[in-house]
């Protein structure tokens, strides 16, 4: 029985593998954010591809057949880790040529919720710089012939990111302290809050698969109404329902909170051809939106 099965496996295997299969890039990253790090380090020397496109929620993403082939065929796979890629985590952990960029981040700097680390590390630029180090190391290992170029590119990007960190700090400082409350669709901005002194509240938990309890919902609404928080924020990769529900409940209590005119990028970048398609562009966009919405007196 098993033998005949194995025979069938091999027989069919020939049939499928005889078709031309796209090989994918040499470096394959899961999210656009990780791909951004790799692209900057590579500086065009090695092709980098991201599996998840713009607006894709990495928590729920289901790898497809083609993704698997790309991951298998790549020389190096980079992923965020810390269970960001919910359904793919175990597979990635057991892929010998895969590296989690979050592993480059010092453990004591991670935030934990219920014993699980929060994977949204890129929202603290300083942490993301550490992730950059991990990417640099992994790429130098995988492509020793390009190691020198990679180190130089990484150093350049590190300088740029350090400047970005300062820029964000300055921009956020313009928001009056009592209005520094960021309410978003899911709990992705805790690192951001810790790094830049903003209180963050997410409607859903760290993963978008959680269901919100009525108590959590009510607490958020109470808070928005009590502190007359002017705006709450939708995310590109999360449904609007929760945010809209908060707005409606606040309106019912006579507080005209609004949904920020632009959505925040939380777990995904935009298309590569717009500024928000890169990490610094995405961070600047988010900060700009937050500052615009929260600073303005209504």
């Amino acid at each position: 029985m098993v033998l005949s099965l194995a025979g069938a496996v091999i027989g069919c295997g020939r049939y499928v593998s005889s078709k031309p299969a796209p090989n994918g890039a040499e470096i394959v990253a899961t999210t656009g954010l990780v791909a951004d790090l790799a692209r900057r380090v590579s500086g065009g020397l090695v092709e980098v591809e991201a599996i998840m496109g713009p607006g894709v929620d990495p928590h729920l993403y289901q790898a497809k057949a083609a993704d698997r082939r790309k991951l298998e065929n790549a020389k190096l796979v980079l992923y965020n880790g810390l269970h960001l890629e919910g359904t793919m985590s175990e597979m990635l952990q057991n892929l010998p040529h895969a590296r989690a960029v979050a592993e480059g981040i010092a453990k004591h700097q991670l935030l934990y919720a219920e014993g699980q680390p929060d994977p949204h590390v890129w929202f603290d630029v300083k942490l993301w710089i550490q992730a950059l180090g991990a990417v640099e190391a992994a790429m130098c290992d995988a492509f020793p012939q390009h190691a020198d170029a990679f180190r130089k590119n990484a150093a350049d990007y590190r300088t740029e990111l350090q400047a970005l960190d300062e820029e964000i700090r300055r921009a956020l400082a313009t928001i009056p302290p009592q209005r520094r409350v960021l309410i978003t669709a899911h709990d992705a901005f805790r690192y951001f809050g810790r790094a830049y002194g903003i209180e963050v509240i997410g409607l859903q938990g760290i993963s978008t698969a959680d269901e919100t309890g009525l108590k959590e919902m009510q607490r958020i609404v109470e808070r928005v109404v009590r502190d007359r928080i002017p705006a709450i924020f939708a995310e590109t990769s999360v449904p609007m329902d929760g945010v809209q529900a908060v707005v409606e409940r606040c309106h019912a209590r006579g507080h005209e909170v609004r949904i920020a005119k632009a959505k925040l990028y939380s777990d995904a970048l935009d298309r590569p051809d717009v500024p928000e398609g890169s990490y610094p562009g995405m961070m600047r966009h988010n900060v700009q939106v937050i500052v615009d919405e929260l600073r303005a007196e209504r």
Partner: protein
Amino acid sequence: MDPELYRMSVVLLTGSLTAAATALVGSFLVLRRMSLIGDAISHAILPGVVLGFLLSTERHPLALFPTAAATGVLTVWLIETLFRSRRLSEDASTAVVFPALFALGVLLISRIRYVDLDLDCVIFGRIEDVDRRPLILLGTDLGPRALWMLGSMFVLDLLLVVGLWKELKIGTFDPALAESLGLRPAWIHYLLMTAVSLTAIAAFEAVGAILVVAFLVVPAATAYLLTDRLWLMVALAVGFGIASVFVGYILASEPILNSQGAAAMAVAAGMLFGVVWLVAPRHGLVATLLRRRRLVKPE
């Protein structure tokens, strides 16, 4: 071995083992008119899964087995107890018990918030990744975990079905006769339900709940349209299950759908059923409609 080929072999072999293991027990479910018990069990064991994770300190993937299996049997027992109380129909008992247990499971998860226990993982299943989830015992990598689990589940189910063939057969067609022959149909019933629970959990962890539900019912139902002999039905069910795995794999492959393997295999099983339903020689749609027109004059 070419890694691509290796991966494909593992996926197809795991899928085939899932199909074979589920079809073995699923055939009896269909004949006992309990097709939906698989759906009920695969939802209702959620609290058992959560409990298993809570109890095991090192979160070993196999740790959820005992509690989940116990919950599966508990589900069946609860359904039967409610039904036997003569206050609810079998249908209603099922429809009360499994949502209640599922709700309990979801509540537990919400309280604990292990991201590990992502509900989606459980429902969608990741059959493409089975080669990347090894069984590690005492520090040694023994190869894909799903192969081990479903392989042993297949052997167990095979032992059960072959060993208790006569009892299962009589217990399925005539429980009263089985009782009078001293064959203990109630025991056989619970044994079968335990096997269904265990198979569901093994498959669940490896390939996702949706594939379990589909493979328990659809290949067996397809086979039932083609034959009146039990052994042939079971064999055909296994065959249809395996065929669905291959068709689904091709469907999910890049040039066609570029999609999720487990769901594609379940859809393939449904498509195979559709085809057989249309063209089956005796019990098919076309045959039935045609034959309705020409009646055989009775002797």
